């Protein structure tokens, strides 16, 4: 087991090297250069500019710059924002917990809703209900998240506000003023207020996953229900409920672990959009803000962190799958 984990980590390193190299190369070929923000001061002379570029190492060969960046990365140094002069790592550390909380909420919503839906659809295969859920899944997958978010805001916040004078759910930020906390400092503020703010963004982020996972659970459940041991369980005279829950359900959930691992990049992408709709101060919003300023050190830093988290997510999913399913042998 340990050997397997170590080997997987060793395999992940070249992948991360390729990713960082690709990202670094993309920054080089884009029309706006990473150092443009540094040179924006109109009173700079040409000599000043040259000195600045030299100081930050931008006039060195591409490969040297890349290797320097990677060496710094090993020391948890991702450079600093040329806009606010804060270190990229501290900027990300401030925002990442907010995004993780949002994604965690979305995972919970997804599992709570998608698993029952998938099981019901599988058990009642080809029924009216199954067809209805299938159509629903198609709509959920085609639904533009930001529009769904806007519609929820209009239905649960704007219309109640216009007609009743209050909002059912808050639509911006993580806390109302006076209840603030800071997740990066493990301060939840007013947890109930936070939970209240989490509902809408959590649902919006979850909606596509719910549709996907629901379909996935359905087909995986159908797979399991056609197995011999299910027939044996039925032949023993167990009730339908017992067969489905004890024998079918548990086995059909195993592949979900892999799906959850593979879903991480999509969830980060969805988080960026959701955070934008609900002005949630997460990493996606930090990325969006930094893109607006041309703050490329932060952009690069966020993408490197994202890549690490995505690769880590896959790794954890693989290991967890093996742990949950004793039939899997590690080699």
């Amino acid at each position, binding site marked *: 087991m340990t050997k397997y984990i170590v080997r997987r980590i060793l395999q992940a390193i*070249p*992948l991360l090297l*390729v*990713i960082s190299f*690709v*990202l670094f190369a*993309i*920054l080089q070929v*884009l*029309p*706006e250069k990473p150092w443009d923000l540094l040179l924006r001061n109109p009173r700079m002379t040409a000599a000043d500019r040259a000195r600045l570029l030299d100081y930050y190492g931008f006039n060195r060969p591409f490969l040297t710059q890349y290797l320097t960046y990677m060496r710094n990365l090993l020391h948890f140094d991702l450079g600093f924002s040329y806009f606010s002069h804060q270190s990229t790592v501290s900027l990300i550390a401030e925002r990442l917990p907010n995004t993780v909380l949002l994604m965690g909420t979305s995972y919970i919503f997804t599992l709570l809703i998608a698993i029952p839906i998938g099981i019901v659809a599988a058990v009642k*295969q*080809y029924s009216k209900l199954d*067809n209805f859920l*299938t159509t629903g*899944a*198609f*709509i959920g*997958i*085609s*639904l*533009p*998240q*930001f*529009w*769904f978010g*806007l*519609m929820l*805001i*209009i239905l649960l916040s*704007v*219309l109640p*506000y*216009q007609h009743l004078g209050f909002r059912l759910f808050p639509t911006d930020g993580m806390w109302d003023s006076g209840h603030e906390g800071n997740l990066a400092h493990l301060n939840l503020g007013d947890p109930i207020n936070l939970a209240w703010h989490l509902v809408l963004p959590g649902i919006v982020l979850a909606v*596509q996953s719910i549709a*996907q996972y629901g*379909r996935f659970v359905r*087909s995986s459940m*159908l797979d399991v229900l056609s197995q011999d041991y299910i027939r044996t369980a039925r032949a023993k005279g167990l009730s339908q409920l017992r067969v489905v829950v004890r024998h079918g359900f548990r086995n059909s959930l195993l592949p979900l672990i892999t799906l959850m691992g593979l879903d991480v*990049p*999509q969830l*980060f*992408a*969805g988080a*960026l*959009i959701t955070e*934008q*709709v609900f002005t949630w101060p997460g990493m996606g919003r930090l*990325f*969006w803000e930094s*893109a*607006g300023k*041309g703050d490329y050190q932060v*952009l690069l830093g*966020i*993408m490197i962190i*994202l*890549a690490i988290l*995505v*690769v880590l997510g896959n790794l954890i999913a693989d290991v967890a799958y093996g742990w949950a399913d004793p039939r899997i042998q590690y080699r």
Partner: protein
Amino acid sequence: MINPTLEQSELPPGAGQRVPDYDLTREIGYYQLVWRRLLRHRLAVISGGVLVLLAVACYLGPLLLPMRWDEPDLFNRYAAPSFPHVMGTDDLGRDLFKRILEGGQVSLAVGVLAMLVTIILGGLIGALAGYFGRLADNSLMRFTDAVLAIPQIFILILIIASFRQAGHTPAVIILAIGVTSWPYTARIIRSVVLSIREKEFVEAARATGSGNLKILVRHVLPNVLGPIMVAATLTIGFAIILESALSFLGYGLGPPIASWGGMLFNANAFIYDAPYAPFAALFPGLMILIAVLCVNFVGDGLRDAFDPRSFER
């Protein structure tokens, strides 16, 4: 964003129905067969019809409406849906219906053109990796893995943001979406080519002295056309959603051009302003949903039609 492996129904097309009496003496071609199977997929046919209708409405409809799409009418802001403003007006009093039709041209065109870029890039990379194998396969697929590990919308924002001086022209948006979407296509094409490469007819072609290029074009390409068409259809859906997401984030085509996503970006700012302001957010998103839903249904029907055995996947 969307899982392309979703299927509409686990039932094989036509299951449970009486087998029609085909004239078995007449020979039908492969594509005729595919076409027939596609026509039997009711949802796909209806969706295809809706898409055609949508495209016709977007390109011809504006000619029939008297008002201008970009002309503000400040005495008529946030009008309720009524005649002559069927969908109401937006924050500047511009007719929403006309703007939706005009915006549809942008959204649909970007979707189709970005799909072309994606399919060409993804098809080439996937075919090269699958056909040549070994080093080409390894290096190209590691590169593909690397691109897939970074959430697409992040790279897209990075690329488009850096064009702020050069301008967010349609070409930039289309190329950016295409250049970041190809890995999904490449993976599909690679796996298909990988299996075709081992087939006897490829071996026979090589034995009779055909070069790699000829084998790829004459023998491999016709056999991957099915998966390519399915991937292409689904990619249009992705691209429409991506373009509207980018526009919504402020990284789409600049004003006064407004795609459906751009209209949502605009509407987002003033939903609290007036009783009928939410309509400006409702309709454009509904159009995106309808377009993408139909594209996905057609893609699904195509998949079933090309490979009826793939229904359980």
